[in-house]
């Protein structure tokens, strides 16, 4: 008979308690993946991690590709064209319906498998549309009861409006089986696949939503499918993500990613050089040379799917004549701006369009030629007498905005346009109606690979420029309807061409200056490739590989 002493009992007890910890400790020891810190100017503007609330460039950076994923993904390291994401394949059932096969075995951050139920819930009234209706629906056929929001679970007021802007005519989603869904639109729409790939159409866990006590609780820690999950979000301070080891695309290469908000450029650069941060984002072009003087560091980045524009108010007395607006467009030496302010690291694009439009892209289209003589002739024809024209600008809201606006002002003045630059503080002052409103800065993105996502959404009848009363054109508005509803690709292509002619030449609504670019500094020793977007890709295969 063995003797059991008090000491042996304590030892056995201690061993029993410690036993479950040993394998974990061993795993932790084996997990030598790096943890990185990324300094950014801003993490998100809206203090939440909801793709429908935070519709911004800075949001794109922290959401993609780490956190949120859509059924149809994007080629983040290529040309951003659609590619299989959470859906492995899709097909057109008819002009109004797309059927998608869901990827099997995709796990949410809470361990649940993604199924058709989650997809339907993602596009539900409770999560997206609230009590809004599809714009063109001809029959009242509610695909679900409008739920009474749970106390504290009401959607912020702008979400349904944003969702309807993304999906104006989505009627319902049918579940075919556990891994097959059908998106059914009220009208024929060739852009359904594009809309499925865009920012805001990303899939979330239904249980994750149900278990959150409030919208804010959910939106601070959304349960999604991305390779990293939220550990802690401190608004305006930091966002910590941790590897989601059940990620369908393989084991994430980083143990954790921490985004920290460092508003000052000098502080971001100093933190990078001192080794406190592994990446420093939002580097102005004039700092690139300074950083790269240190052989251990490099600045990556380049053009993104966003163009900088100058926008006109055709109701302004001086700009009512399109010849004056055309003079503005011919007086700009865009290439000089690209060379001097951007060190040649961006380009002058072919108008308000992007190559990833595919067959809708007009490769032979160009921005108006820089020709001061044409500009002067146009002003003469218009009978412009040198009356002042106000150019409202913000203080470096866009990268290089201050020097660009000063250069533009001088270029315009040199052809005889009496442009008065007026620096204001915010967007509502920029857009404030009145006889003085004339010229302003803006930028336009293309969230998916069709002109509907840009020229129609921004300059069409429902776009901001027409909504705030700056500009309208009857033919343009008819063409928008064609582009949104026609399935005839040739007609759509011709219509888009005509829209470019109207908006950029005949009756200028805007003129494109250059493509925007973003730059990220990092240690050369880190093997990582930047995307042609604000998004930062830390999925398997793009870090340390």
């Amino acid at each position, binding site marked *: 008979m063995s003797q059991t002493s008090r000491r042996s009992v304590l030892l056995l007890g201690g061993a029993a308690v410690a036993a479950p910890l040993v394998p974990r400790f061993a795993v932790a020891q084996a997990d030598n993946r790096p943890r990185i810190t990324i300094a950014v100017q801003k993490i998100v*503007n*809206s*203090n*939440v991690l909801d793709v429908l609330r935070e*519709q*911004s460039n800075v949001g794109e950076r922290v959401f993609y590709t780490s956190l949120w994923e859509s059924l149809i993904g994007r080629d983040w390291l290529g040309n951003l064209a659609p590619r299989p994401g959470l859906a492995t394949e899709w097909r057109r059932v008819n002009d109004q319906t797309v059927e998608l096969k869901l990827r099997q075995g995709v796990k949410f951050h809470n361990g649940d498998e993604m199924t058709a139920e989650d997809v339907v819930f993602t596009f539900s009234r409770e999560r997206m549309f609230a009590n809004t209706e599809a714009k063109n629906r001809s029959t009242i056929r509610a695909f679900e009861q409008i739920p009474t929001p749970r106390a504290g679970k009401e959607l*912020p*007021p*702008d*979400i*349904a*409006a*944003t969702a*309807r*802007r993304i999906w104006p005519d989505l009627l319902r989603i049918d579940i075919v089986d556990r891994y097959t869904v059908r998106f059914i639109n009220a009208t024929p729409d060739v852009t359904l696949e594009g809309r499925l790939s865009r920012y805001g159409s990303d899939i979330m866990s239904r249980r994750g939503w149900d278990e959150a006590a409030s919208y*804010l609780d959910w*939106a601070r820690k959304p349960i999604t499918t991305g390779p990293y999950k939220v550990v802690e979000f*401190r*608004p*305006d*301070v930091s966002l910590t993500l941790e590897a989601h080891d059940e990620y369908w695309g393989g084991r994430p290469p980083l143990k954790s990613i921490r985004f*920290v*908000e*460092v*508003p*000052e450029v*000098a*502080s971001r650069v*100093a*933190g990078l*050089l*001192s*080794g*406190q941060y592994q990446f420093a984002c939002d580097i102005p072009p004039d700092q690139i040379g300074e950083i790269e003087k240190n052989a251990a560091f490099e600045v990556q980045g380049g053009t993104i799917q966003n163009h900088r524009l100058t926008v006109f108010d055709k109701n302004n007395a001086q700009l009512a004549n399109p010849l004056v607006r055309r003079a503005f467009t011919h007086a700009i030496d865009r290439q000089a701006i690209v060379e001097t302010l951007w060190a040649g690291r961006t380009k002058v694009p072919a108008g308000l369009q992007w190559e990833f439009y595919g067959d809708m892209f007009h490769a032979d289209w160009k921005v108006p030629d820089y020709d001061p003589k044409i500009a002067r002739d146009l002003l003469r024809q218009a009978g412009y007498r040198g009356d002042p024209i106000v150019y409202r600008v913000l203080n470096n809201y866009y990268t290089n905005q201050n020097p660009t606006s000063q250069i533009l002002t001088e270029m315009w003045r040199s052809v005889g346009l009496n442009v008065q630059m007026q620096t204001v*503080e*915010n*967007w*509502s*002052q*920029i*857009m404030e109606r009145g006889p003085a409103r004339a010229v302003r800065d*803006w*930028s*336009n*993105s293309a969230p998916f690979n069709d002109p509907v996502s840009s020229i129609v959404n*921004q300059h069409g009848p*429902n*776009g*901001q420029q027409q*909504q*705030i009363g700056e500009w309208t054109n009857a033919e343009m508005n008819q063409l928008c309807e064609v582009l949104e509803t026609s399935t005839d690709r040739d007609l759509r292509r011709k219509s888009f061409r005509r829209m470019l002619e109207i908006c950029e030449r005949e009756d200028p609504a805007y003129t494109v200056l250059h493509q925007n670019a973003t730059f990220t500094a990092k240690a050369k020793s880190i093997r990582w490739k930047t995307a042609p977007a604000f998004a930062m890709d830390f999925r398997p295969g793009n870090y340390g590989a």
Partner: protein
Amino acid sequence: MLRFFALRLLRALITIGLVVTFAFVVLRLSGDPALIILGPESAPEAIAAFRKAWGLDEPLWRQYFSYFGAIAQGELGRSMRDGRAAMDLVAERIPATLALTIPALIIKIGIGIPAGIIAALNRGSLTDRLVMLLSVAGFTVPSFVLGLVLVLIFAVHLGWLPSGGQDSWRHAILPIATLGIGGAAVLARFTRSAMLEVLGQPYVRTASAKGVPWRQVVIGHALPNATIPTVTIIGFMVGSLIAGAVVVESVFSWPGVGRLLVVAVSNRDLAVVQCILLLVAATMVVSNLIVDFLYGFLDPRLRHAGGRSGS
């Protein structure tokens, strides 16, 4: 005495009311929070929905009165960015700011006052000139320049300290030093001037002539009288404990009240701005009251005069 405090309190309430009104008018007339928070590319219908939900589509006077009415009932409002109570947002940030400003205040007093006294007692000497040189330098260099210089030296070149953030006590050293150096320089200059003025007074000469040891003259006669202007400056410094580190917090990415104020103002997040302004105003008022008390304690003439007027 009671009347004295009642008047002070009334004056403070009027001041706070004016501050709140001024901030409301300036912030609401200079920008639309919906457009600023949702961004220039957001859908017009989203902006309209946001405006309606937060009452921004109401006439300005109605917004003002409903806001003022809510404040009168102790409801400071919610942040338009995420719907959280403004007071909660601000309260979360106060400890971070105090973690910088209180040690910095100690440094300001601990270095500034002795330096000023030493300079005054050695007027015209090399020590005096050196103290004043450093004081003028500390006083004139803006805090964001000083902060970046310290970062370059101690974070980038020497690698001893982190350049920003709030992860450990080491992260606080450079921002505290930045705040402390500037404040100490100010206090040193004021203390020196006050001491020099007092040292030239007849009662100091009389005490010296009577054979009182110089050390005792300085401690017993000069210092208490020279303290009054210094206490006034320290009162201002205490009053700015809550929001006195706006620039330094931005340079060092320190998540305190100052940074919250910058973000809230740029977003026209009125409730948060007002909440911070109310706190700052309240801190200033309390600080001024404490300074008034200290005046009475330090100068019996004021104490007696105050007692008579209050009786």
